[in-house]
């Protein structure tokens, strides 16, 4: 793992009306690591990822890519730099086959790339898809002709991850990739995560499932109410510690409550 982050956000803030989604957050992704971004609902995880992936513009803050200031104002800017995202809804087209989904929006065509009537290079796309899936050890019944709505949930997830990793040369964001999966498929996705990181890509995993975090993450970043409250290597961190960080439970505060309970008069006062 190198010492310079491949993607970094400094002082990122975002509010939606009166609601503060992110408040002055610094976040860095290093090549080849898996960093888990955790926090309760509304902590700001999705917002942070969307800003770094270009889907949302921050109110303030700066983004750096490979150490230089980067203008990432739309998803295209992000994708052009090799930053890909697997969203919770997977963003797959269920009526089309795996190859088509792999190349969604980036189809290989004969001749100029701009003409919408350009004829597609099916065979090349199929070959590329098969290679990418093989690299990640994903087996599917057919990458050509089988609409992906006929695949299982886990297989669809795999296709989404394979697509993102095929194009993500630098950073991969995954938003709740295991939320809807069974045990076996979860294992498969986590394994995939490790393989992707092993290729030198920085992987950011948003999840609220503690065991999964502990299984794959090299580093943990905890958000609470839009602020970063922890950023530490995962080694030695227990699930309990993590929960406390997420929820904000401080043993010191607990003593305050005990004292209050034993002195009812003082508490009763205005």
């Amino acid at each position: 793992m190198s010492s310079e982050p491949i993607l970094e956000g400094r002082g990122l803030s975002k509010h939606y009306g009166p609601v503060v989604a992110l408040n002055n957050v610094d976040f860095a992704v290093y090549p080849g690591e898996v960093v888990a971004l955790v926090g309760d609902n509304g902590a700001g995880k999705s917002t942070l990822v969307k800003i770094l992936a270009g889907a949302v513009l921050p109110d303030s803050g700066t983004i750096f890519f490979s150490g230089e200031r980067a203008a990432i104002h739309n998803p295209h800017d992000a994708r052009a730099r090799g930053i890909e995202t697997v969203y919770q809804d997977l963003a797959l087209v269920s009526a089309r086959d795996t190859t088509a989904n792999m190349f969604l929006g980036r189809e290989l065509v004969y001749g100029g790339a701009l003409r919408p009537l350009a004829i597609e290079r099916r065979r090349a796309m199929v070959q590329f898809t098969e290679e990418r899936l093989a690299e990640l050890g994903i087996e599917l019944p057919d990458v050509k002709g089988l609409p992906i709505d006929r695949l299982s949930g886990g297989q669809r997830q795999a296709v989404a991850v394979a697509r993102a990793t095929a194009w993500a040369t630098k950073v991969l964001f995954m938003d709740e990739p295991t939320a809807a999966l069974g045990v076996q498929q979860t294992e498969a996705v986590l394994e995939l995560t490790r393989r992707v990181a092993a290729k030198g890509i920085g992987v950011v995993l948003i999840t609220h499932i503690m065991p999964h975090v502990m299984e794959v993450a090299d580093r943990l970043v905890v958000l609470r109410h839009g602020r970063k409250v922890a950023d530490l290597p995962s080694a030695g961190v227990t699930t309990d510690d993590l929960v406390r960080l997420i929820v904000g439970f401080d043993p010191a505060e607990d003593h305050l409550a005990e004292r209050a309970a034993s002195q009812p008069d003082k508490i009763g006062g205005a």
Partner: protein
Amino acid sequence: MNHVLVRGRGRVVRRGLAYDQTGLMIAIVVMCLVISWKTPYFFDTGNFSNLGVAISYGGIMAAGFTLVMICGGLDLSISSVAALSGQALAFGLTHGWSTAVAIAFALAIAAACGAFNALLMVGIGINAIVGTIATQFLFRGLAYAWGGGGAASTAIADATVSNLANGKWLGVPVPTYIMLSVFLAIGFTYRFTRFGSNVTSVGSNRVAARRAGIRVGFTMGAAYVVCSLCAGLSGVLLVGLNGGSVPGAAIGIELTVLAALVIGGTSLSGGTGSVFGALLGVFALGVLANGLNLLGVSPFLKVASVGAALLLAISIDSIRQRRRAYRDE
């Protein structure tokens, strides 16, 4: 490296010739056999010639309509666009324009209608059913108003236009060639070009398509324009078939076109469909109507038959959709 993912079941399905079309083709063959068993006049070159003419103008519309439907849209204004294009053609010809220019003008008017539809349904985002019914009335009203007012037809005796409708080449009616060419062009585009891929992607999951960088607005807009162009071409053909431009032309054709599509395997909710299937659907309905005519069936039964076919097709489509939903675990 462990291959951790479970192999799924699932059939291999080729995109063009889906399982659905095989069933339809068998149904058509059965229908042909039953009809020719009951009447000796079905299997006759003259009758096939008539059939080719009868399905042509609806078929051309069906090709373009399929594209819009797969893309997730709907265009119920096609009948009015056809009539308006016919009026445009009549305007050009009665003002001494050359046939080619007049036809180009008629198609330009059709494209303008398509662009207007695109502006409403795609640009503003109006619901397609309500929006295109509104434009159906709007374009029909314009057709009535053009050329003097009211529903009066304009007699057109132009030789080229007449030949387009009534001519034959190598024994096959010209309108049939036109229809097949349109299906070929649209089918090829749908199957082999990036635009065709985008049409399916946009229709199946618009959000995903947009996130992937596909120009959703352009794709849908283009589909509406292609649909209207087909309706315009059909309108030009109708002028030749009718002997003139009739402002009331093609009223009600959209339901037959819709039936043909759905029978052919295009889903009402968009995302999946088949251009070849639409051609089969057009053919199936044409054979059905032809058979009922040859057998001298009561007119009330004839009117009911298209409705019954549409109902059957929609039911099959609903069952297919439900099966798709249940496939997720």
